[in-house]
């Protein structure tokens, strides 16, 4: 068995074992799951919400995961299940804080302003920073579609919009971000 395949297999088996242990109440196993997955969850949360909320929401995701472990049936990988749970927690947070104002924009201009002036060295920022400055609606559609791989129909259901709006927001986000490709 090639070394990388072996490593991947062992990692998957180790996660499966820890998931089973955690499901039965083993907090040490759950801590190992946390350490394996926290970067992925925290990054998703940070990109979907404001950075200053990321720590609290990430903690909330893992606490909810612990509470809901008994519903994890193993049809998918634990990481996939946790990721979907994280998306749901983020979206619930989005609703609870009521940040609906200006969530979706109709043209490029606000996006251009939010993502910084193009081709201005003194205002240059990296791609992640430019992403963080997009209006929330465009940012969430971009993260869900281009980073996380969800389809427009799924995104529309999650965000309570129509697929056409999701497509439009995605295009606006990409157009704004293309100016920050090399920074």
């Amino acid at each position, binding site marked *: 068995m090639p070394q990388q395949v072996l490593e991947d297999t062992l990692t998957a*088996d180790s996660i499966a074992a820890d998931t089973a242990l955690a*499901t039965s109440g083993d907090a040490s196993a759950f801590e190992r799951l946390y350490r394996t997955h926290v970067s992925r969850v925290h990054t998703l949360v940070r990109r979907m919400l404001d950075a200053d909320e990321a720590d609290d929401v990430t903690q909330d995701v893992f606490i909810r995961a612990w509470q809901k472990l008994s519903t994890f049936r193993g049809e998918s990988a634990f990481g996939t299940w946790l990721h979907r749970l994280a998306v749901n927690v983020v979206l619930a947070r989005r609703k609870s804080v009521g940040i609906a104002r200006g969530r979706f924009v109709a043209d490029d201009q606000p996006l251009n302003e939010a993502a910084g002036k193009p081709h201005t060295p003194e205002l240059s920022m990296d791609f992640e920073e430019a992403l963080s400055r997009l209006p929330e609606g465009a940012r969430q559609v971009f993260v869900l579609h281009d980073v996380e791989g969800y389809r427009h129909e799924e995104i529309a259901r999650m965000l309570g919009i129509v697929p056409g709006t999701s497509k439009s927001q995605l295009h606006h986000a990409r157009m704004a971000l293309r100016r920050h490709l090399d920074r």
Partner: protein
Amino acid sequence: MNDIWTNRLSEYLDGELDSAEQAALEAHLATCGACYATLGELKHVVARAKALPDTPPVKDLWAGIRAGITPAQAAVTARPPVRPSARRFAFSVPQLLAASIALALLSGGGVWIASRPQATKAPDTVLLPPSREAAVRQVVWTRNTDAAIADLQTALTQNETKLDTATVRIVRQNLAIIDRAITDARVALQKDPGNAYLNLHLADTMRRKVELLRRVNAMAART
């Protein structure tokens, strides 16, 4: 550059235009340098998005999570932050050997405790059991782990020439101790297949063996 086709470029890129629209846009791209260039930039944005790395939080969040899942024990068990990257290979061979010996002793004791007719108390690490379905999954998991352990032991045989003989001897002695603990757990499980603690205990012991083998192999690979 903001012609009627510019706003369709993402849909084109994602393969969401119908065949007539796609043909029309491709005809436009053949004559519009601005749209052609923009399409190239959008492709780069999509590629960049897929390649964005995950980064860990600046501070360790486990203490807060631990407090959230076990509020009554949080004050007692909260630990100082541990950086994930520092944790992975934080143990020396002697520490691993000591841990494996302790594991073997605990394993034997655990099996003995779980096998006693009157034994019902779970170990301290088991806190708030949300489900008892794990035992079933453990049976499936141990089959896969047996194969993984066999591969790792083969790798250790190949790697052991890179380690000093004393280390190899001690590693093998302690692997034998862990193996006996695994065997004891399996024998106990044959008598009491539904014992959730024994199933979990077996899985945990096997996982620790996998971790020991991986770490020793990794150390050998680095020498």
